[in-house]
């Protein structure tokens, strides 16, 4: 597998092990006409200082809701029902809205999937950068402008001083995402949440943006929550990985453990369904059969059981705990894995190791 090629040993930055964000039992729900939808139901994970957490899962599994919940940007009819968001020792859910506002953009920032529409169309990008600095740093207009140009240069925008006067519609997607990154990093935050920052960009630009994020991470000892569908990217940059399925955590662990010693059938399925950009003849991809369930019609027990090749009778009856597997490598929510009855370390194990229920 080409994962090994992608995962060269990387320089570890920052105080390894120091917890920056600890998410415990986060539960976010939306009240809809058809009832309450638990978009995120009991997520546990943490992000260490200076590290990149990859957040992966199929569309609609609650990745964006998780990230918006961390910033407490869930708007009605959505609501954070329960959980703790311990950021640098303080529970974000206990802060008042002013304290939370001071934190956003200052200590925790976020960038989004659509860079061009994430910028205000009626102001120049320079003005928007200045606003962030004026807001959090009380900078005066002139100083803010100089700093804005500096930030634009930092994120690799050519001719930054003239670009300050450009309007968003005049920028390419890649340039706009660089501007967004500059805005997000203007106040040197400790945590950056990047919600599919490259999905809307072409392949070359994707690479550049990921490189840029990695550079920024090294430069500022920044922690990043990187949400993406691209396991290749995760393989390349992530220190740890959270796999989500249908609003619940499936598996969480160090990136190496997830890639080489995963314990959850869904993780295995994801890994085996991707070609990491280096497909070779003779190797086979094994997409996961079926589609993710609707959140308002979750199957009983383990939500993955209708698609799972390792499903046991207990899987239909009870929801698996999210706990450490006996091998000690990762935290997973799977009955047989928690009972130590599953070994999925081999690539392709999801398909070849199929058993009848």
């Amino acid at each position, binding site marked *: 597998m080409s994962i090994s090629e992608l995962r060269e040993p990387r320089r570890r930055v920052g105080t390894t092990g120091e917890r920056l964000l600890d998410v415990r039992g986060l539960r976010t729900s939306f009240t809809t006409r058809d009832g309450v939808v638990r978009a995120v139901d009991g997520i546990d994970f943490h992000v260490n200082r200076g590290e990149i957490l990859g957040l992966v899962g199929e569309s609609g599994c609650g990745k964006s809701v998780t990230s918006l919940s961390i910033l407490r940007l869930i708007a009605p009819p959505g609501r954070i029902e329960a959980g703790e968001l311990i950021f640098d020792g303080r529970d974000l859910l206990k802060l008042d809205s002013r304290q939370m*506002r001071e934190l956003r953009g200052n200590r925790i920032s976020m960038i*989004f999937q659509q860079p061009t529409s*994430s910028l*205000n*169309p009626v*102001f120049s990008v320079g003005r928007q950068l200045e606003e962030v600095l004026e807001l959090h740093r009380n900078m005066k207009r002139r100083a803010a402008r100089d700093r804005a140009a500096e930030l634009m240069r930092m994120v*690799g925008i050519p001719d930054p001083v003239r670009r300050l006067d450009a309007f968003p519609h005049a920028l*390419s997607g890649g340039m706009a995402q660089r501007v967004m990154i500059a805005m997000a990093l203007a106040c040197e935050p400790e945590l950056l949440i990047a919600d599919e920052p490259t999905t809307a960009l072409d392949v070359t630009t994707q690479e*550049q943006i990921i490189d840029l994020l990695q550079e920024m991470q090294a430069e500022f000892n920044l922690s990043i929550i990187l949400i993406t569908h691209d396991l290749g990217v995760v393989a390349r940059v992530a220190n740890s990985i959270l796999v989500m399925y249908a609003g619940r955590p499936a598996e969480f662990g160090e990136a190496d453990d997830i890639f080489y010693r995963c314990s959850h059938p869904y993780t295995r399925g994801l890994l085996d369904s991707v070609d990491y950009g280096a497909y070779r003849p003779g190797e086979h991809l094994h997409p996961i059969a079926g589609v993710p369930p609707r959140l308002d019609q979750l199957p009983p027990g383990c939500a993955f059981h209708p698609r799972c090749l390792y499903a046991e009778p207990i899987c239909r009856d009870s929801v698996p705990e999210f706990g450490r597997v006996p091998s000690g490598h990762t935290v997973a929510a799977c009955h047989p894995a928690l009972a130590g009855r599953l070994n999925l370390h081999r690539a392709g194990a999801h398909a070849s190791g199929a058993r009848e229920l």
Partner: protein
Amino acid sequence: MASTAPLAEQSLDQPLVARPANLWRDTLRNLLGQRSAQAGLVLLGVVLLMAVAAPILATHGETTNMLDAGETRATGAVRNAAPCIHLLGCAASKSQHILGLDSNLRDEYSRVIYASRVSLEVGFFTVGIAIIIGTVLGAIAGYAGGWADNLVMRVMDVLLAFPALVLAIAIVTVLGPSLINAQIAVAIVGIPVYARVMRASVLSIRERDFVTASRALGASSYDILLRRILPNALTPLIVQGTLGIAGAILDVAALSFLGLGSQPPAADWGSMIGDARNVVFVAPWLVLAPGAAIAIMVLGFNLLGDGLRDALDPRLNR
């Protein structure tokens, strides 16, 4: 950084423009490049010139009775006198009145010129009031939502349920006939339009990605409303306002025509038409002249409004 910069240069979609983009300059350039806006600006320029240079352009006083100005029946100072232009063969013994005299022996041409001031003021004042109140109400309704939204918008619905002019007449009747009351009435009647435009803008803009993005970077609700939503809502408001000026002028003119607005002896196009309505077949110029003036002004604002609508769309800037 050195490694990414050259790559970034290649991935630029568009070459750098020679001059940095400037929203207002771009808008102005777009505006001036449009036929309808050009025509509108010319027409409004004429009206503006009339208003500013009225003392120079007018041949007589706004309210001067020609008998008081030393003219006699012999020199043509009769009620509803026909236009007398010496160049076009009017007898030299008669005094010259380009658009004749009205029923009070006042020079119609001079009155038409002076009345442009009233109409301009009426247009801007009325729409200004309506826009300010409408925008505030619409912003509250759209941003606060819930019961505030319901309360504001139901009141607006009630206002909209009446034909505008009928409602304006009712309001003036309560306030008493005068030009200022007519303007207030027309402004009140105009509020719902701007409130609706603003509310709709707020509702659609608040869902846009850049609003969420600014929230994620720490902007407060106040910042969001004033610096994100309002500037983006300005386009439809300006366009609606420009078009609204025309309507407001017509409405106030209509009230004046009915004797509920501008009071004698002040000159106002609407009341001038109203005063001359009984002699429309005898002295049609007394109706046609102020009528044409209203038409020019209304057309000017409508054309300008259409042009603005296109010019203010930042995506059209090149």
